[in-house]
C-alpha cells in the first residue's frame, strides 16, 4: 500500500541552525501539507502546497519557514534559524484531488537544543 515517507525520523539541531525535513508524498497525490504536533498538544496545520505554490499557510508558518518541491517526488520543509519552541513532531501529508482525506507520514521528531 502506498505511503508517505519522511526522513529523518529524528533530528537534533542547535538553536539557530537551519534544518530541512524531507518527505516523499504518495505518487498520484497533488496536494501536499506540513503539520506539526508539539508534545502533548494537538496536530496543527502549517502549510498546504498545490500546483507548485503555497495555497494556504497558518500564522505559525512565518518567514523562518519555507517549502519546496525540488523534483517530481520530494517535498521539503526548511526552518531557517531554529528556535527552542520549534521542537515538535513534524508530519507531512498528501491527498488526491476531489478526496477529502489526507494521508500522513510517520513524522520527523525535531529537537532543538
Amino acid at each position, binding site marked *: 500500500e502506498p505511503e508517505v515517507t519522511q526522513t529523518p525520523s529524528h533530528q537534533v539541531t542547535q538553536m539557530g541552525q537551519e534544518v530541512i525535513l524531507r518527505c516523499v508524498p504518495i505518487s498520484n497525490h497533488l496536494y501536499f501539507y506540513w503539520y506539526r504536533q508539539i508534545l502533548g498538544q494537538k*496536530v496543527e496545520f502549517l502549510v498546504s502546497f498545490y500546483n507548485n505554490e503555497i495555497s494556504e499557510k497558518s500564522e505559525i508558518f512565518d518567514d523562518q519557514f519555507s517549502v519546496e518541491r525540488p523534483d517530481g517526488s520530494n517535498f521539503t520543509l526548511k526552518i531557517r534559524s531554529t528556535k527552542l519552541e520549534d521542537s515538535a513532531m513534524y508530519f507531512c501529508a498528501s491527498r488526491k484531488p476531489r478526496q477529502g482525506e489526507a494521508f500522513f507520514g*510517520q513524522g520527523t521528531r525535531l529537537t532543538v537544543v
Partner: protein
Amino acid sequence: EDQVTQSPEALRLQEGESSSLNCSYTVSGLRGLFWYRQDPGKGPEFLFTLYSAGEEKEKERLKATLTKKESFLHITAPKPEDSATYLCAARYSGAGSYQLTFGKGTKLSVIP
C-alpha cells in the same frame, strides 16, 4: 473558540466493553469530518471520512456516525490493540479550506 472539541480526553475500557467517543464541531461551512488513529510517536492513520448528517462508516470494530452538530466513533467489543489516541478533524469551506483542523484527541486504553 475551538472548532473541533473531543470528549472524553481519556477513556479506559475493559476488553469487550463497548463505548463511544464524541467530537463536536462548528457546523457552519463543514466540508468533511475525519477520524484518525494515532499511536504514540507515529503519524495519524486515516480511518473514516463523513460528509453529511446521517452518514455512517464502519471498519472492523469501529463505526463512525455524523449528526448535524457532532460525530461519534463507536467501538464495539474493543481489544487491547485498539488502544491509541483517536483524533477528529474537520475541513471547512472558504479561507482555510485546504487544511484540517484537529481536536485534541481521546486517548483510549483497553485493558485485557
